[in-house]
């Protein structure tokens, strides 16, 4: 079966160019990021940005790479105007059902944790990173305050300890790492 007999040459040329351009748009995002990535890939991707953004092709495809790391969650405590408290975690395996809902919520601490430096990082790194993660955490805090009818919320990022095989065999477990993300409240009258 000669494939040239089904579509005319001019159509095959046009479609071939379209296929090549499309496949470049699939290949360039994982080449251009996440780091490490080359300057060349980052320059080549520039003309493709409109198309990649429009069809949501900007993926890295680095599943469980470079290393499967520890899991993360948010621990929150809300204080209500009447003095009562509520608390919870994101995600919450006990209530987030079906599992896909759990996973979508689980992505919040997983993705934000990538922006939060570990305790002991240099102050300039901490300050720089805070400019990135705090706007995201503020939205999260506002959502939880509204949902829980609270006036003040404290948020903590928890990095869950990933035990070594020998620790599991010996029945030992390490401590989870708690990284405070701050306390947030609705602005009062007179606040700037």
């Amino acid at each position: 079966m000669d494939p040239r007999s089904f579509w005319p040459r001019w159509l095959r040329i046009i479609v071939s160019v379209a296929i090549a351009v499309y496949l470049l748009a699939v290949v360039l995002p994982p080449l251009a990021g996440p780091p490490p990535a080359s300057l060349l890939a980052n320059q080549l991707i520039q003309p493709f940005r409109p198309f990649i953004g429009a069809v949501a092709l900007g993926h890295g495809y680095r599943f469980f790479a470079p290393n499967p790391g520890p899991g993360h969650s948010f621990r929150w405590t809300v204080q209500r105007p009447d003095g009562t408290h509520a608390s919870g975690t994101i995600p919450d395996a006990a209530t987030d059902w079906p599992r896909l809902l759990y996973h979508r919520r689980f992505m919040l601490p997983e993705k934000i944790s990538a922006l939060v430096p570990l305790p002991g990082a240099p102050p300039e790194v901490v300050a720089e990173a805070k400019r990135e993660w705090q706007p995201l955490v503020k939205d999260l805090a506002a959502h939880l305050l509204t949902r829980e009818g609270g006036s003040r919320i404290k948020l903590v990022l928890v990095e869950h300890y990933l035990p070594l095989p020998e620790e599991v065999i010996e029945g030992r477990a390490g401590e989870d790492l708690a990284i405070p993300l701050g306390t947030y409240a609705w602005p009062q009258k007179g606040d700037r």
Partner: protein
Amino acid sequence: MSEPLENRSPAGINAWLHDWATGWNHFWFTPADPLPLAVIRIAAGLLLAWSMAVWLLDVDAFFGEGGWQQPYKVWRSNDQPWQWSWYFAAASPTGTRVLCGITLIAAVLLAIGLATPLAAIVAFAGLVSAVNRAPLNVFGLDDMLGLLLIPLMIGPAGATLSVDSLLFAGRGAAPSVRAAIAIRLVQVQLCIVYLFSGCGKLLGASWWEGTALWGAAANVQYRTLDLTWLARHPLLTNAITLTTLFWEVAYAALVWPRLTRPLVLAMAVAVHLGIGLAMGMMEFGLAMMVANLAFVPATWFRAIVFRRAESSRSDSAHSVSQATLKVVS
């Protein structure tokens, strides 16, 4: 043995370029049976419908004004004006629900193959809108659904196993170039995904050391099946980790030869079923397995789908003839 390029005459180079053009034409423009595309359409439509149903469970938090992320902040952090989402235009909770519901309906229509081309476009628009509105809540499942829906928009995905094919029976499900392009796109995209996923793993020491599987098994946040017994079997952990790494890196090369393809696809089922069952990401595992269906020959699907249909037809014909026989006797 082929001649080194630098030693070739201009005529030899022309012949070599001609071979390339012929190979390219054969690869992309040889008409293909649309049946595998239809099977992918049904599975991808069902997965997207399920995904949209789950988005709807907490739709205000994911896509609403007061959600996990304020829309104007997502808008600003996206690559504007390209990274669009129709949820940015939804001014009310009702509007958000309607848009989410439209995507759900489009996904169901895609699965059953009714108004398939339109359903594929609307479903894709809904998926892109969700991804660009809630970037902190999406993961590999959404990446893969996007990569499946684009070929489904291009190819004749509703040509068979669809309501459309019943309503417009005259159109038939003949092999077509569009079906070939769509299937080839799924195949090539999948190779790209595995190649980058595998290369990304090569950056990690735990994959070289053969302990990466332990990192996944010991992570309580992911765990749905307790695999911590692997702690007592480090060599088994090494073997599974290294096999997975080699399979993923080599997928793009080994999935094409007929000799290795069944092994590569069997490994894909094992890996993705394992991730689905042990790490609670069944939808992601299914999406990857659905994409792998693009490498299953159409004759297999034809044998499974239509032999069953034929056998049920022959069963019913047999029972009719028996009924006739009873009357005669």
